[in-house]
């Protein structure tokens, strides 16, 4: 056990949420090692809560409660021992560069105090976000791997935008696709359910299609089995139709086949 001052030095920053993601990770690794450090962090967390309780309360607008209550039935409650690998698997094959309005990688790790195993926390938090909105949008979605946290965060951002909308359509080759979008953010995500697996030389490609029928590529993806989450690249313009075609591996400049699904966002 190493209780050097260096290890303890970050406890104030940690409980005040003043660390960045990598510093947190490093600190949490130290936390897992030292009961003494955990005790200090627990006490300082309680102290930070008192700072929070000293803020004058403000009653939120009544509509907020209605919005929240209306969503509960779509959000499954996680069991205490739920592990991400027990949830329906999803493969996200296309890493999406975060747009300027996208969130930084999810900093959603819960406190060590309640969630002791740092190893599973990163994966679990991405799954938690996706599951919350997956529940809302009728898909059971879980994510694996670190490259997916941006996807999960982007989906969370879209889903919690005040103007979030959704539309579902069936896919001509099987399965369904749900489009979730926010005009305000100009971002959208597709959640595919039971999409047909494609041969290795083919890929799904999403498109923004404007009212004149012009298509702009919105990213490549493959069926991830039961459910597929794809946050679309580029910017969606209000009223665009989102289409998906099957293209040769590597994608195409413009659609070369008939869309297997098209969802209007108007």
């Amino acid at each position, binding site marked *: 056990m190493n209780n050097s001052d260096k290890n*303890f*030095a*970050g*406890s*104030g*920053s940690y*409980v*005040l*949420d*003043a*660390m*960045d993601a990598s510093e947190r990770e490093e600190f949490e690794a130290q936390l897992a090692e030292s009961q003494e450090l955990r*005790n200090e962090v*627990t*006490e*300082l*967390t*309680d*102290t*930070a*809560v*008192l*700072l*929070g*309780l*000293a*803020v*004058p*309360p*403000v*009653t*939120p607008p009544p509509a*907020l*409660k209605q*919005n*929240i*209550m209306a*969503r*509960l*039935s779509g*959000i499954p*409650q*996680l*069991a*205490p021992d739920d592990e991400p690998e027990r949830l329906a698997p999803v493969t996200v094959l296309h890493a999406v560069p975060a747009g*300027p309005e996208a*969130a*930084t990688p999810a*900093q*959603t790790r*819960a*406190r060590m*105090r*309640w969630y002791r195993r740092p190893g599973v926390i990163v994966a679990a938090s991405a799954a*938690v976000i996706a599951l*919350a909105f997956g529940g809302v949008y009728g898909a059971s979605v879980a994510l694996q791997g670190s490259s997916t946290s941006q996807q999960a*965060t982007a989906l969370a*951002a879209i889903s*919690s935008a*005040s103007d979030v909308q959704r539309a579902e359509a069936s896919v001509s080759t099987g399965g369904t696709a749900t489009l979730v979008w926010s005009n305000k953010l100009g971002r959208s995500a597709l959640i595919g359910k039971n999409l047909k697996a494609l041969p290795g030389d083919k890929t799904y490609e999403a498109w923004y299609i404007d009212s004149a029928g012009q298509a702009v590529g919105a990213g490549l993806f493959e069926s991830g089995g039961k459910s597929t989450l794809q946050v679309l690249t580029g910017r969606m313009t209000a009223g665009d139709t989102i289409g998906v075609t099957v293209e040769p591996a590597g994608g195409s400049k413009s659609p070369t086949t008939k869309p297997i699904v098209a969802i209007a966002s108007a």
Partner: protein
Amino acid sequence: MLELVTTDLPKDSDPGDVLPASLGDLLGRTAEGDERAFGELYDQFSNRVFGLVRRLLKDAAQSEEVTQEIFLEVWQNAKRYDQTKGSAATWILTMSHRRAVDRIRSSQSTRDRDQKIGLRDLETEYDSVSESVEIRVEHERVGQALQRLTELQRQAVTLAYYGGYSHSEVAEMLKVPIGTVKTRLRDGMIRLRDELGVTS
């Protein structure tokens, strides 16, 4: 009158003590899928969450979005709350601060926000009038404890907690090394813990 009420509060009170005792029960029933209990929990505690989130984010629309995320997360994770590890208020408010800070860090509007709030705002932090005696007592108790910190500790702690700034941002703002900020934050929080009689 306030002093009388203050003396009624045990010195080593848990954060949960100043809130209706049933918050933990409501969270327990929420964990069983009881939407009504969750609604009551929301009624009791949403003004705390929203107040804190709005203090950090300033923007009303963003604060509503983040408050919604927080309560949906409470619903989703209610079974994972372990009451032996802290009060329901601690659990929810800790999560709330974290989510608000996440939003600040991920938001492009960080720079705009920087222009809206500054050190001078912090001076008035403890002048605002609270509605209820309970809150007022807590408010004053914390305000007094903050006065026991050194000026430098208070500045760092306030910027981090109420301003949502990272320790590197605080370091930049105050033109001191990050290690110095870390030390001020830790020493300040330890001093506050001792002043407020927090024990685990």
